[in-house]
């Protein structure tokens, strides 16, 4: 039992967080709770503190909308929060799509689908930055928040809180896409919100740290990591995970039997040094 907790503690905490957030939003609409009202695009915390999606606000800005003060305050709060806790902490701790894609990726490995695929997947993880740029270009030219009208994230989240409609189709599409088409396809390759938070997370303080001297090269961390490229240092050097693409999901920490991975506060000056050394070594 203790090992079970030890190996899944962060996963359990993440699911609890994700589901509690959904329940709070749902309760606000259904039963008039006022802890967390609205949805992930913009909400009101404790009837007082505005919270807003900075990526949505960026699209609004590019589309030519006037940004209201409440919105800007909400954007500032959310941006600061993720600057501290890692941009893509949103992806693994808040976003409801994460539950779907994690399920899909679990089934994919259980069915051993990747053993049936001979070729290396041709898709690049930089697609998300292209999609991000494209969303801003379209927002600019069409005068509309381009991603917000197709976002499966808000479709699903809004759907759960306000009524789903055909939103289940979006859920199923993402599930099947990740299962059969591309491993970690949506969250790891395409989602521009993830791309946005990756950029924001470059500067975040909370990081996973690898201690090479403890590592036994079992590679369990690389097996569970949805953004495997961020763990390039495993078994090679003691380095923090500096890539903003790390979602701080902490799966690597909990599966490691050797305590070779842990959360730590980024030591800014030192890490900058490491980062530049790293660049030079490439």
């Amino acid at each position, binding site marked *: 039992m203790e090992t079970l907790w030890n190996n899944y503690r962060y996963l359990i905490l993440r699911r609890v967080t994700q589901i509690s957030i959904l329940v709070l939003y749902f309760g*606000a*609409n259904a039963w008039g709770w006022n802890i967390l*009202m*609205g*949805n992930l*695009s*913009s*909400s*009101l915390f404790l009837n007082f503190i*505005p919270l*807003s*999606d900075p990526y*949505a*606000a960026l699209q*609004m800005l590019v*589309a*030519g*909308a*006037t*940004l*209201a003060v*409440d*919105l800007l305050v*909400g954007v500032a709060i959310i941006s600061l929060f993720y600057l501290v806790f890692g941009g893509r902490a949103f992806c693994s701790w808040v976003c409801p799509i994460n539950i779907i894609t994690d399920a899909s990726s679990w089934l994919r490995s259980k069915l051993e689908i990747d053993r049936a695929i001979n070729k290396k997947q041709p898709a690049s993880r930089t697609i998300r930055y*292209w*999609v991000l*740029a*494209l*969303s801003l*270009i*379209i*927002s600019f*030219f*069409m*005068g*509309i*928040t*381009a991603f*917000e*009208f*197709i976002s499966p994230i*808000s*479709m699903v989240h*809004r*759907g759960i*809180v*306000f*009524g*789903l*409609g*055909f*939103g289940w*189709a*979006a859920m199923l599409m993402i599930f099947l896409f990740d299962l059969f088409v591309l491993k970690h396809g949506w969250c790891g390759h395409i989602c521009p919100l993830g791309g946005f938070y990756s950029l924001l997370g470059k500067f975040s303080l909370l990081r996973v740290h690898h201690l090479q001297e403890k590592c036994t090269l079992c590679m369990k961390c690389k097996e569970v990591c949805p953004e495997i490229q961020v763990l390039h240092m495993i078994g090679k050097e003691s380095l923090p995970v500096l890539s903003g693409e790390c979602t701080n999901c902490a799966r690597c920490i909990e599966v490691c039997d050797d305590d070779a991975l842990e959360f730590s506060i980024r030591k800014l000056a030192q890490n900058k040094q490491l980062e530049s050394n790293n660049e030079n070594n490439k």
Partner: protein
Amino acid sequence: MKKEALSDRRKFILNMARGAGLATISGFIWSAFVDEATASPLLLRPPAAIKEKDFLKTCIKCGLCAIACPYHTLLLAKPGDNKPLGTPYFEPREIPCYMCPDIPCVPVCPTGALDESSVTTDGVLDINIADMGVAVVDDNSCIAFWGIQCDACYRACPLLGEAITIEYTKNERTGKHAFMKPVVQPDICTGCGMCEKACVTEKAAIFILPRDVAEGKAGNYYIKGWDKNDEKRLENANEIKTTTEISKKSAMDSLNGSLEDLY
């Protein structure tokens, strides 16, 4: 024949070109989809909504207005509703806007897509100046126009006797009854839709349309000469703008000339 390996620079340029090509394809598909998906001219927005074009880019689709609405009037468009996704709207025949004096849906809007100042008179919220749309009567299906007495819409109107008035005319068919016809006063109607909800016909004979769909426009070249206020528009009128060239011929020449230039 063995081909020479591509240089790194060439590879880089080719890969960038591929990326740009794919981005162009997906960009056009995406734009086309969004353009179609946001075209919904018959949608009724919450009170104080800014112009539709601005609304679509300003509304962040958080649903705070829908949560604030005590009557569950406001809905967020779901996939499958064929309306701009996630934006708030209402369907008066289902649940109309009950025109709360404190307008709870408006001040909660974080982005200003619902603009408090447009429903404020002298610093006080005033739902009576809201403009969600305008009621339109189909006098072919309205039974009051048949001569059957019905004033359901008139009674349901929250601006009783102002936004809908009753016009009395003689019923020539019977010779002894009156028609009591509902007439909408479009400048006063807020488009709340309580009339549409109350209408007794199978499909409502009075219904709300967005104002720019329901109304025509005379153009600023028509001036009501009998209306002092309207005449004031002439005072500073000095702009001469024509789209067709004015004929230099005299009127007589023009009338007596050949008909050639007509064909």
